């Protein structure tokens, strides 16, 4: 079966409901590596482990 970026991203829980026709064309042109990258980021953003190194200025986490 042909690689379908839209399907893969949707299955990973990435919300693409608001993309327009032009963006849809771009999504359909994504390579497997580019889709894997987005899916990887999505998973990591959902993990509960904090970043290895936080960023602080003036004692403020921002």
């Amino acid at each position, binding site marked *: 079966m042909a690689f379908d970026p839209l399907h893969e991203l949707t299955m990973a829980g990435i919300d693409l409901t608001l993309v327009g026709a032009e963006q849809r064309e771009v999504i359909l042109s994504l390579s497997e590596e580019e889709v894997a990258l*987005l899916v990887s980021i999505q998973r990591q953003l959902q993990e509960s482990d904090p970043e290895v190194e*936080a*960023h*602080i200025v003036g004692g403020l986490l921002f």
Partner: protein
Amino acid sequence: MHLMDILALRPVPAAAVLMAITRRCPLRCRHCSTGSLPTSQEHPGHPFLRLAGTFTPGDRPELVMLTGGEPLLRPRLVRSLAETAAASGSRTMILSGMFFAPRIPPAIGEAIEAADHFSASLDAFHEEEVPRESVFAVMRTLLARGKDLSFHVTGAGPEDPYLRDVTSAIRREFDDRVPVLVSRVQPVGRARALPPNASPAVRDTAPQEERETQARVLPCAMAAWPVVGFDGTITACCNQDVVDHRPVPAHLLLGHARDDGWSTIRERCLGSDTLRAIRTYGPLRLADAPGSGYCETCRALGPLTRARTPVSAFLERQVRDMQLAAGGAGFARRYGCPPYSELVSLGHPRRNDGL
């Protein structure tokens, strides 16, 4: 302005600007990330005011975040900055170590009144300098005046009993009306000298953890808001080492408050190929040879030149949107202390009812 609304802006490039308006602080907290003392460096206020004066209604940050050191050592500057920013529609937040508690001196009260959000630092180290009850007394007064408030609490990690105690006390005292951002003490400034058992977070990164991290694509939400350092130098990142050390790595230098206007700073922040790539992929993905940590790797990067294509623009926007979708609690979970991340929604109309 609720803390959730502030945190929700965090992944948006140039949505805010941080201003560290003095390194001075009368407190001597053992964990101080800026190593502040009453005699630390302090520069004239006019570059900060000059930069705020370049905001326009059509080209401004949503938020100006004032920190230090202790920003309320300069209450008139804080008030002027808040009023100047407000004239263009920007809102202002202050973070204070509460050296003045339990009283609110008139000039400090006026500075807080001019801001849209006030946040108090509270942790075991601050409590050695300012009693918790004194901090609560000030926050009770401000809450009664209708000010949007938050607490910024730091601790050793999820198992730290202090965090359980202080967050319970805040919730009880303020009837769940004041949000709390909980983070971990980091090995920066005087905290580098803390014994490891005093703060499990103050440690070197474990080799295994490091190896795993280096293999990851991990976008940086922190390369989004320009930071005006104590001397007016403007950097793209709020990592304390970047703010403090000179020279600033070229790809993280945005300009100087003495010379550059907001429009220029915003354009450099948004337009830099390197910063866009850091925000999208993170430094570990970009480096030929990752360094010993995430931020160290970033500081060692050279300027990148990448052609902007429809695909790269989509990836950039999508990564930003995924972080936005995680919201303020997502930010707190990612960069703070996960078990306490939902406390950022306390007092918000759409708070997590599971709390």
